[in-house]
């Protein structure tokens, strides 16, 4: 008796919702085994990881703060992946956005007024769009693989930022640390809950996710992207432009990643530093998949991943657990999720193998 997969007549909508829940459960079980292997009490450690972030108001606000960049990037990636365009260089677009915003904020230290802040955000989005336009152009014009090009550009963006904050943008009063001047108050994303760091970026993330969901579900463009992603040949017969889809997917996801970079910098550290990206570009991929490649779903995916981040920070402080455990949790979660997603299209049957 061997378990084997049998195709369902049609994809199971119920499994599509249940799969992330099962995957989270399996991650907790595997995580408990890992923590036991590290010589920790698994119950205590899992509590610190996954419950402690909810125990006080400040932590709950921090969860949302952490989720904002992941949600913004994840919503854009959901659109991109749906169109079968694999933008995995969101981290680079995020850095490019933060730098383009920095160009405005550091170039206009005297500026005051909301218009400047809006300009700052627009520059951030434009930076991400410009960075994503490179793989879009090379893919559509020269057929160069967008996965590899966008990823290579991430390394380039990070090095560019490193050069900028050690060179032309280095704060002369920064004791030689690699960091830019502080952004002035004009370029701070306003806090919306007194006593926490919860900022207006969360509103932008929600608006972006809802708008993209409506675009995907209700507009012809959204339909085109979904058809091209699911069945490129059918899309071609319908006259949908593959080139247009690649451009659109990359520019939307790049623009949102750039916006996320500009918002994150202006809301948390208020200056450019070499390590601002913190791997959000990669982790947002998991957020997009947890959200079922649905932009609004990415909001929830981002919150779940934010729990692992805040929990990981708590575990570092309270249990002296290494920070890499968080990465392992996140990688395992995506593994389990992809595995469970098989059950959307197939069911497990116990029985004799068919003849090969």
């Amino acid at each position, binding site marked *: 008796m061997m378990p084997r997969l049998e195709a369902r007549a049609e994809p199971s909508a119920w499994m599509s919702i249940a799969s992330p829940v099962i995957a989270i459960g399996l991650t907790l079980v595997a995580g408990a085994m890992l923590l036991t292997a590290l010589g920790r009490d698994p119950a205590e450690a899992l509590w610190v990881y996954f419950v402690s972030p909810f125990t006080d108001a400040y932590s709950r606000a921090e969860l949302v703060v952490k989720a904002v960049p992941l949600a913004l990037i994840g919503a854009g990636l959901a659109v991109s992946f749906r169109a079968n365009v694999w933008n995995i260089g969101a981290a680079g677009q995020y850095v490019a956005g933060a730098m383009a915003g920095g160009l405005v904020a550091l170039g206009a230290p005297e500026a005051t007024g909301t218009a400047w802040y809006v300009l700052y955000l627009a520059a951030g989005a434009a930076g991400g769009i410009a960075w994503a336009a490179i793989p879009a152009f090379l893919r559509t014009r020269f057929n160069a693989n967008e996965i590899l090009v966008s990823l*290579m550009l991430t390394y380039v963006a990070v090095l560019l930022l490193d050069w900028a904050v050690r060179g032309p943008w280095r704060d002369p009063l920064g004791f030689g640390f690699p960091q830019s001047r502080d952004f002035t108050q004009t370029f701070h994303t306003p806090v919306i809950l007194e006593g926490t760091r919860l900022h207006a970026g969360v509103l932008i993330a929600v608006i972006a996710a809802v708008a993209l969901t409506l675009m995907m579900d209700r507009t012809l463009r959204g339909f085109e992207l979904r058809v091209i992603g699911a069945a490129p040949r059918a899309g071609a017969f319908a006259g949908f432009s593959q080139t247009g889809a690649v451009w659109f997917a990359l520019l939307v996801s790049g623009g949102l990643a750039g916006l996320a970079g500009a918002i994150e910098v202006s809301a948390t550290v208020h200056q450019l530093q070499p390590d601002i990206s913190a791997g959000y570009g990669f982790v947002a991929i998991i957020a997009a998949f947890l959200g079922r490649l649905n932009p609004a779903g990415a909001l929830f995916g981002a919150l779940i991943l934010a729990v692992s981040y805040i929990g990981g920070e708590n575990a570092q402080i309270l249990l002296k657990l290494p920070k890499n455990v968080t990465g392992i949790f996140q*990688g395992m979660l995506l593994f389990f999720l992809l595995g469970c997603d098989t059950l959307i299209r197939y069911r497990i049957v116990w029985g004799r193998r068919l003849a090969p």
Partner: protein
Amino acid sequence: MEAFLISVLIAATPFLLAGLGELVAERSGVLNLGVEGMMLVGAVAAFAVTYTTGSAAAGMLAGAGAGAALAGLFAIVALGLLANQAATGLALTIFGVGASGLIGQGFVGQTIKPLQKLGIPGLTDTTALGRILLGHDVMVYLALALALAVGWFLNATRAGLMLRAIGDNPEGAHALGFHVVRVRTLATLFGGFCAGLGGAYLSLAYTPMWGENMTAGRGWIALALVVFATWRPGRLVAGAYLFATVTQLQFYGQDWGIRLPSQFLAMAPYLATIAALVIISRDVNLTKANAPAAIGRPFRAER
């Protein structure tokens, strides 16, 4: 110049190893984007074992084994459960970065004796050519031998023909009675084995130490290398040396009077990778001729 050429031969070895492994996997129709993650766990496993046992050979095997183990995870999810290969490979890289960092935290800052250099007395020391070509550790030569072996296997053996058939047309190969999933699994494991070996070379020979994320994108460059080589082992060798040359420029550029900030020199390998991808990919005939037709497409025996 002599030191530069010697360093190029060394730097090409991890590209060659990881690239050959991925080439075989892709030829069977499997696109595993987890090379970076497999190289990292290979690097840390090799360093940990060599540091504790003192045996570089044991370390090499441990690195290769760790890479293959991660590839096994990929095979279960992507080949067994038919998950999207691109996403599964990304998960593998995220997991590998985390796992290698966790395993390696006790080894940061430790040093080991680098892999022993071979040499033929009288030949290696006396001439510049001898010093450049003959004074390396055994892996530099094994990687080249592996390229020959892979080329022979793919082009001159029945098993290689079967593997390529599975990569081009899994349904047809299945109808002929070939075990598609089994062959793809083996090819994936071979890819992990080689990526782990490439990682091991980094932490045992290239820079005999462990540092978080020490592969610095080499796994991704190896993936690009396979495209650049248009899936042919011979071209992969040429590509590996070309990419290694660019990588080494950042260390020698300053000496040669290239007055650029170090960050710009460090960008060179990534920009060169993009340039190489563009040059190769723009010629559709070149890429289509050898690209496995069914790459990245899940296969399930329906009948």
